[in-house]
């Protein structure tokens, strides 16, 4: 390790200089956007999945293709588009919304799979008990579908995490770009970018451990 740091000319002063900036942008932007967008994605994804299933065919088909389009095109382009289309909203708000919407199209697929995985017999039981559509969804289908989707939601949150650098195109400087800007000002890039990688790793590894455990527990219970 020592020889590598020597070969790379690793500078500890630079390390301590840049770390506070990285941590603060991590908390104020990366984490904020990830958490709020995850919430939006979780809710909107469910709405999309239910629309696809319950809405009249023309509406369902329209929603499906819009969701496909959003899912299959780069988020950068969507950010830019929204940024110039909605001038009254500031960058971070647009970032949170677009990340939420983009990932909701992925989440809707997860929910769809979760809903499909609810055994046919459960639906039949609700009919046999004369349960209303609303009660069927809220008391039986969603609670069962949700369990299977929590791990996926966690994985998407981690993946969203790593998409946040794209926010720069709409003027939001998050951790990676804060590191790059620091590099541009001082011409020292190795320290900031390596630290960025380490912070990502420190944040996503426990999340993935947690997801793994959740996956096991939920699988056992149902």
């Amino acid at each position, binding site marked *: 390790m020592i020889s590598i740091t020597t070969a790379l000319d690793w500078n500890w002063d630079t390390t301590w200089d840049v770390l506070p900036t990285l941590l603060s942008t991590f908390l104020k932007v990366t984490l904020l956007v990830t958490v709020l967008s995850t919430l939006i994605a979780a809710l909107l994804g469910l709405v999309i999945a239910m629309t696809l299933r319950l809405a009249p065919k023309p509406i369902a088909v329209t929603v499906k293709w819009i969701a496909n389009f959003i899912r299959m095109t780069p988020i950068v382009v969507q950010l830019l588009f929204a940024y110039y289309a909605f001038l009254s909203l500031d960058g971070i708000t647009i970032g949170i919304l677009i990340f939420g919407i983009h990932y909701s199209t992925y989440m809707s697929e997860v929910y769809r799979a979760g809903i499909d995985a609810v*055994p046919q*017999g*459960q639906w*039949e*039981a609700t*009919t*046999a*008990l*004369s*349960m*209303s559509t609303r*009660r069927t969804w809220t*008391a*039986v289908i969603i*609670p*069962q579908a949700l*369990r299977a989707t929590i791990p996926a939601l966690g994985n998407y949150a981690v993946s969203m995490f790593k998409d946040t650098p794209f926010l720069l195109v709409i003027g939001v400087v998050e951790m990676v770009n804060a590191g790059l800007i620091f590099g541009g000002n001082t011409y020292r890039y190795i320290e900031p970018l390596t630290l960025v990688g380490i912070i990502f790793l420190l944040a996503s590894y426990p999340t993935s451990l947690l997801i793994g455990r959740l996956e096991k527990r939920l699988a056992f*219970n*149902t």
Partner: protein
Amino acid sequence: MIEFRDIEKSYGDHLVLHELNFSVAKGDRVTLIGPSGSGKTTILRLVMTLEEATDGYIFIDGQPLTHEERGGKRVARSKKDQKDIRKRIGMVFQQFNLFPNMSVLENIIEAPVHVLGQSKAEATTRAMELLEKVGLADKAEQHPTSLSGGQQQRVAIARALALDPEILLLDEVTSALDPEIVGEVLGILRNIAETTDITMLIVTHEMQFARDVSNRVLMFDGGKIVEEAPPSVMFSDPKHQRTKDFLHAVLGDAEGTIGTH
């Protein structure tokens, strides 16, 4: 009273039920027997409105179930009307289909509270009575997945009874159970048959049970009723060759019969 009038059911090109006409009187216990694929389950599913007939009408106490004839045309009844009539029918499935996200008690009070609009207290009192009846009063707070198959099926029966149905549909309710446990569940059903006057439509491979409980047996084959008789007649003196073959296959050779110990 359940009445099937000219019922036809097909899946795509595959005709499953063919001009079916029969009726079940109030308080009747009718068993449907017949080879796999003969359409027994389909009949129960039609009554429970899990499927729609391709043609024909089903009446419950004279009221049309899903479709009625209006101006010479077959038209669907409103969802609300269908729902009202469906409340009078209960069903127990082969695979129990308990809700795994609810406790045993919650499973049972779900429909009384949210469909019949009973208070939670009232529904709970009744649910506990039913659990008592099926011998599971101590499991009320447990999770269905922590119960054995036989116990789950008993909860499913209690759940169906909680709606106080006039008609109870039972589709091979013991065939997912261990042979040794089958008896418990059949015992409970026997008890219900003896102590209530619920109309029962039963699909089963347990000929013993069919004999004990039902007052009428319908033998199905290829989507048609091939023979109809009280169980005493059906099992000892079947008329049709198809029935004879079927009973022979299911019950085994007469001379090989086990249990004469």
